[in-house]
């Protein structure tokens, strides 16, 4: 049995756990805890070690999707999670510009850990306060050749679209050698 791994990362409360939940065939193995810090209390629970979801491809191949903890004090987990990944997805809450700086930092860190293909998912695009994908690209200083995809992390089709775009990028990179 071969297993491959993708990582879903992004700032605190960006929607990473929802993203994995939307496509995982198992209930996401979640390590959520009640939030203790007032500053981070914009949701009730958060991921403290990692989430993981699974998609069985066939008898010989399983895809695991790992979610990283978004809170900075758990960033020691990032390097461990990034080991051997096929590629990664950075989920950004399009309505929270205060997290864009952190998203940029996370993106650079993951690129440093493993230079694998990645895409950026601009979550919550349906909300009126959401920054447009073009504006987000500028804010995150994303190169033109990096895919920035509008996304609704709770919507399976939307998440599928993001995963497929990442896989297309991985395939292109493999073909380019």
């Amino acid at each position, binding site marked *: 049995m071969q297993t491959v791994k993708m990582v879903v990362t992004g700032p605190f409360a960006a929607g990473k756990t929802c993203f994995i939940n939307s496509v995982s065939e198992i209930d996401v193995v979640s390590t959520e805890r009640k939030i203790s810090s007032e500053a981070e209390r914009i949701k009730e629970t958060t991921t403290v070690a990692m989430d993981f979801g699974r998609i069985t491809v066939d008898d010989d191949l399983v895809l695991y999707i790992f979610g990283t903890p978004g809170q900075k004090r758990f960033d020691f987990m990032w390097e461990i999670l990034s080991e*051997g990944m096929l590629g990664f997805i950075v989920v950004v809450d399009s309505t929270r510009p205060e997290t864009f700086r952190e998203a940029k930092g996370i993106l650079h860190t993951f690129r440093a850990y493993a230079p694998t293909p990645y895409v950026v998912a601009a979550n919550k695009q349906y909300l009126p306060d959401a920054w447009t994908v073009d504006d987000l690209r500028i804010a995150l200083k994303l190169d033109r050749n990096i895919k920035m995809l509008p996304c609704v992390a709770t919507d399976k089709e939307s998440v599928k679209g993001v995963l497929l775009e990442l896989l297309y990028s991985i395939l292109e990179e493999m073909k380019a050698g």
Partner: protein
Amino acid sequence: MALKGNLRDFSVAQLFNLINLARKTGTLTLEGPDQAAWVSFREGKLIYAQLGSEDGTLTGVLAKAGKLTPRQAKLIKTHAPDKSDQELGLMLINAGYLSQKEILASIRQYVLDIVFQLFTWTDGYFRFDGDVLPPDDRITIRIDLENIIIEGSRRVQELEQLREEIPNLDMALDFVDRPGANIRDVNLNVEEWKVVSYINPKNTIRQIAKANKMSELQIRRIVYGLLQAGLVEIVRPEGMPLPPQAQRIQPLDRQEGASLVNRLIQRIRSL
């Protein structure tokens, strides 16, 4: 008993605040990541600071401030080795070379530069020894601590933000290869040029800082500015090994890898 502990538990800002409120007299010794520092106070006012083995004599201070050339500094050290700082200061004033105001301003700036650097130390042993003061031959000043605490705290906050922007100083920098991004067309100051001259995928940011004797805050500020201007990008230093498991994916040959990814694509489409 001396006031002592670790900066992890009691920050430099908190220590200064305590010294200010209690109007303490004595010397605070801090053992930082690479070197030690000594900061002296009289009745809650900052009077003197010394960092590691830096030349904190008046000659050294004036040379650092650019008031003396390295040659002049060397001459003074050779010809007047036994002169105290006060005597040397008087000599320079009487010779009409520098005014008292210039000398005091240089000392003040020297002390402040050291002290602001200390605010960024977040780990290390500290000890406050009451009534221990700098050597008698040193010229001391009197600076209120309130403004220093405010400015120091602001710099700590700035450093934290810069650490988020540039999380790893062991990465290297390279010039951005795009039309219109020409470093020669940009107005840079001396410090920025010093950094630019070392930019090369072989040099880590940390090495560039060390070569230029810059503090963490100084190098991060400059690199941040260059990044914001789109002139440079952060790159993996040449020769830096990949994480072991990231390499493990390599054995997949191109055909095998493409086949695997195509299977994943088919599966996700069918979800």
